[in-house]
């Protein structure tokens, strides 16, 4: 699980162009949106693409993201359970 979390952090940094950030800077329990990493709705859509591209998970409803993207840890758990690749 820790390995997946670390890899996911790297992927998020790359996909969302979080310049000047390292995986160590991201608290796996902190919120990705709002106060936490300060991501916005376009970033959420980009994370949906990331899950499909890297893990074969297809979300149909953007509102599902609200739960899944609560934190990197929640996201990693969801990927662990649902990944097809």
């Amino acid at each position, binding site marked *: 699980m820790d390995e997946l979390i670390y890899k996911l952090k790297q992927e998020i940094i790359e996909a969302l162009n979080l310049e000047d950030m390292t995986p160590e800077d991201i608290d796996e329990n902190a919120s990705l949106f709002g106060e936490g990493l300060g991501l*916005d*709705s*376009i970033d959420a*859509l980009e994370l*949906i*693409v990331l899950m499909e591209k890297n893990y074969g998970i297809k979300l149909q*409803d*953007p509102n599902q993201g609200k739960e899944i993207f609560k934190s990197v840890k929640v996201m990693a758990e969801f990927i662990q359970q649902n990944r097809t690749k």
Partner: protein
Amino acid sequence: MTAPIYITGCGVVSAIGLNQKESLETLMGEHSGVGQLTYLKTEHKEFPVGEVKLSDAEMRNRLGISDNAITTRTALMGMLALDEALKQAEITPEMLPEIGFISGTTVGGMDMSEQFYLDYINNDAHKEYISVHDCGNCSEMTAKHFGDFAFVTTLSTACSSAANAIILGANMIRCGEAEIVIVGGSECITKFHLNGFNSLMILDTKPCRPFDATRNGLNLGEGAAYLVLESEKSAKKRNVKIQAVLSGYGNACDAFHQTASSPDGEGAYRAMKEALEIAGVKTTEVDYINAHGTGTPNNDVSESQAMMRLFGNNIPPASSTKPFTGHTTSASGSIEAVFCILALQNGFLPVNLNYSQAMDDGIIPVHQSTKKDLKHILCNAFGFGGNDSSLLLSKFEQK
């Protein structure tokens, strides 16, 4: 109140008709032009769209253009609409060097570029299409078909492009920089933006339902429309029939987010307010609002809030005509402006098709066919980038 800007000609092409007459019949008959994809070659058959019911070859044939000529669908639709507008305004080719042309488009020649993109890289077979990729080139091509205009300018502010083309032309006439300017926009559906809107997860797989509780996104459409804007002096001198008056307009920025509208509809509110202020028209005098009403959860709440803020408890009848045509993106501002002119001239409120259930925090749109004498209509067009514009179209009354 400043000198009026007259509209002396219109032309419109969309999923509900190839001219004003067909559009009027379909609007009054309440038939949607949205259906399954036919002309665009894509695997995305799940999304209903509002296509213009002609192939490129059929359009070329109507326009008397050879099949070997290099054309784009955006330019062809533009030519069909411009032809109708020029004829109605009685503008002959000799007059064009004195007339400006401002067209709104964003996708430009992308329909051809995406078809031949790999060829560009691999060989020279279709390299002539590279030159028509630019948005600017589509406007030039449309204009050139009829002759040499005084100038050709392209406006590119996403889905408010055509509305802003209308505003730029009106300002030029007001300044005395031009007597006649032809304004509007054209845009065809492409895989490029179909996939793009899909990636934003704002396309509905069912027919769109603006201002409805169950709304779940927009349907893409395509088309073109142009309006001939003319100064009072010129219209009188030419003794041409005046179709309607552009009495006000506003362009404001929502300054909130690249693609999302602010929850309180700040930009929309400011744009509508400014349009009324320019015209010196009170909120109680507005008879109908043709809403931007895309059918996305976000737009319809935001636009409703803007209307509630501006009109309080007296919101005029409002509807979105996008269930008829789909969202014609860059062209929507001028296509819907022509629909408003048809409504003014024929005294009816266009119906918001597919409406059944009131949404939270939203307006209740016109959902029953209504005959009504109309004097002032607000027509909204909002674009990504927070670019919100509103036009006030008024009935022409002989003094």
